[in-house]
């Protein structure tokens, strides 16, 4: 949308292209329901477990963190770079409060898998 807006502003004589963004990037996520709670899958390849923070506030699940280019060393020269390395955040709102749910997470094949078990 912002891209097409640009097109119209360009009409005014501006050759600049710009897009509103925050300071972050937003990884893709799947959410699905299972009998005993929810499963959330977030596309977070290349992110270390220690760089991720998971937080629950009311009915909102917040996944935030930072993807760092762990593999790079001084002296290398990139030919091409398409993976974003920076802070990310994913805010997911659930239809019901999830406070008190039992939460566990694991990385599997580049995906962060979070399980929310209904609390007893």
């Amino acid at each position: 949308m912002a891209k097409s807006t640009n097109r119209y502003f360009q009409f005014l004589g501006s050759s600049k292209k710009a897009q509103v963004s925050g300071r972050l990037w937003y990884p893709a996520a799947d959410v699905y329901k299972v009998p005993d709670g929810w499963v959330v899958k977030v596309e977070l390849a290349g992110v270390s477990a220690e760089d991720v923070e998971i937080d629950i506030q009311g009915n909102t699940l917040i996944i935030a963190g930072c993807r760092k280019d762990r593999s790079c060393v001084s002296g290398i020269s990139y030919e091409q770079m398409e993976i974003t390395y920076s802070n990310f955040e994913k805010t997911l709102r659930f239809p019901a409060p999830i406070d008190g749910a039992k939460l566990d997470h694991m990385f599997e094949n580049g995906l962060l898998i979070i399980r929310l078990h209904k609390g007893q």
Partner: protein
Amino acid sequence: MAEEKTTETKTVTPPPLPQPFEIAILPLQNTTLFPETVVPLAVGRERSTRAVEEALATEEKLLACVTTKTENVTGDDAKPGDLYKIGTIVNIKRMMRNEGIMQLIVQGMDRFEIVEWTAEQPYLKAKVQILPDLRRVDDEEIEALKRNIQGMIQEALALLPNVPPEIRAAVMSQENPVQLSYFLASVLDLGTETEQKMLESSTVDGLLTLTHAALAREVEIMQIRSKIASEAQNEMDKSQRDYVLRQQMKAIQKELGDDEGGEKAEAEQLRERLEKADLPDDVRKEAERELRRMESLPQAAPDFHVIRTYLEYILELPWRKSSEEKLDLNEARRVLDEDHYGLEDIKERILESLAVVKLRPDSKSPIILFVGPPGVGKTSLGRSIARALGREFDRLSLGGMRDEAELRGHRRTYVGAMPGRIIQSLRRVGVNNPVMMLDEVDKLGNDFRGDPASALLEILDPAQNNTFRDNYIDLPFDLSKVFFIATANQLQPIPMPLRDRMEIIQLAGYSDREKLNIAKQYLIPRQIKENGLTGDQLTISDDAINLITSRYTREAGVRQLERTVGNLARKVALKVAQGLTEKVSITAEEIKGYLGPPRVYPEEARKELPAGVATGMAWTEMGGEVLFIEATLLPGGSGLTLTGQLGDVMKESAQAARSYLWSHATELGINPEIIKQNGVHIHVPAGAIPKDGPSAGVTMSSALASIYTGRKVRSDTSMTGEITLSGLVFPVGGIKEKVLAAHRAGIRRIVLPDRNEADVDEIPEDVRRELEIIPVKRISDVLDAVLEKESSDPGLKSYFARNLEAKADGSDRPVTHDI
């Protein structure tokens, strides 16, 4: 359901500001990067490339961008002093190399301020301090500015055509005023200085104020631009619309088959014809001017058709086209003889005129006026002249014409204007030297509506008519090659100046003998042929023809005669067709059976005239006639009574006659007492026919003298002539017709004014031989010639005697004149 919230950054608690750190610096030309926006960047210079590569080799992929203060410092040469102190830290999100140029997509993160430069080579490096987020000073002002900015954006979007509604919604829904400002600053070309100011702004209020000002300026420019654009568009639209409609109209016309290709083609056709036509220079110039005017007009314009008709007329006129002259005088003579019997003098004069034309081909054509009674062949003479000359012939009847525009045309400004009859006739014949017959010029009207005779003056004047200007054509046309022949029944109604321009040829009526010959040679063969008979099926004897001319027709010409012959021929044709007979020969005795009783009883010479009656002669349009003037005394009355539809001139001549006789009574042998004591009544039959003119003067004198003296007027004598009070006899006109009529009536003695003797030559020889013509100078000569010697009426004698006795007895003494 789960939902993504992209715009809410506040959910993350801002981390405490980090300590200053060292970072690669990328100098930017003409561009300012703002936080929270994603923009593409191209990096090509070596030092900049190194800085980017250095940044890419870190875990965080962060780079510090600052803008050069002036445009002419390139990224490679920029010294720390050329750069602003405040810039934006960016995260490099993508990088592609393309022919040595690095294409970057970077995301603005935070503003920073350079604390200390640490290196310039191989790339710029500095210690930077991250700047805190913008402070909000006055929330209400921020809200007001935000709304204003949104209003202006809406305005700007309205000026742009075809903005999808979702774009509008996207811009309007941008809740974060800082993000909105940075976005606008990124896309609008505000200039480095303004952009840098916005970047350096540390409060939301300040940033929005700057954005507001910049946007207001942009919108104003946009409005002006859009106004200019729409005006230009309007202008273009109108001419384009006209063009499209015209094309459509042409297509429709073509479809309807109105014309092949519309006005253009029409004008082109005319132009082609114009180029081929043989026109004088001034005519061509005028025609081309009109054609240009026509080409500039749409076909629907009324003037278009006016001009087209005009041009077509001009192109059809024979400006230079003449028919070839084949003038052979012997041939002309033969043609004239073939078409007309007799008329020797007239043919002679026509041939004389033609001879001049032959000897001087460039001379002005003569203008001939034929004057004569109806049916004598004026029109057919004109036709014969055209035939003899081998020219085209056209006849214009001017009888009853009263508008000079009929001759000279209407000006083109009038609706339905047309050229005059002269130009129309020329177009009809297609050559400029026809024989043009102007029939009945004596019957031109002349009243407040116009005077066509005056227009004829120009047309018939050889000195002027080479530049005859018709009102419609409005160009000079040379009429001098036209052979004009005019005809008239009478000379008097023709205005003097017009008469003066023409050579007058008088055609008198035909005598009975001429009519007989014309009938035998022309009329009977023609009627036999027209009625489908052959020559030997119908013969009419001479006596029969004479009977027809005298008793069944009354005319100077031969029109009625021909009609009557035709009548006979038809009756014979009926009999032949019915098979009742093979051939018919008609004699005088049988005429009555065919034509019924005679229709005309001409005044015949009375066997014996009582005293007081004299035979006169009158000229009529039908030829001549014999008439009787009757006078009678009214005993005891006084004065003069005149009856018989007499005109003023005739009445006056009666008065003059009486006065003369009275004043010269004694010497003329009249007893003045008779005149004094008796009134007198003069009557001229037939009473229903109006009569006028002075030529009955001598006849009235004779009748009066007869009644006063008692001496009868000789019954074998008729007379004509004008009288004066002093007793002179003046010449009169129409001698030939009058004498012929008298001859027809059986009169053998004719009294004429001596000055009319020249006219006697016109009388056909055979008639003249049978007549005794007595020229007279004075009234006394007339009386000597016409009065019988003695008063022969005994009754009258006794009447006189009684009157005189009564006078002698009475108290009144008779007055006697001394001689």
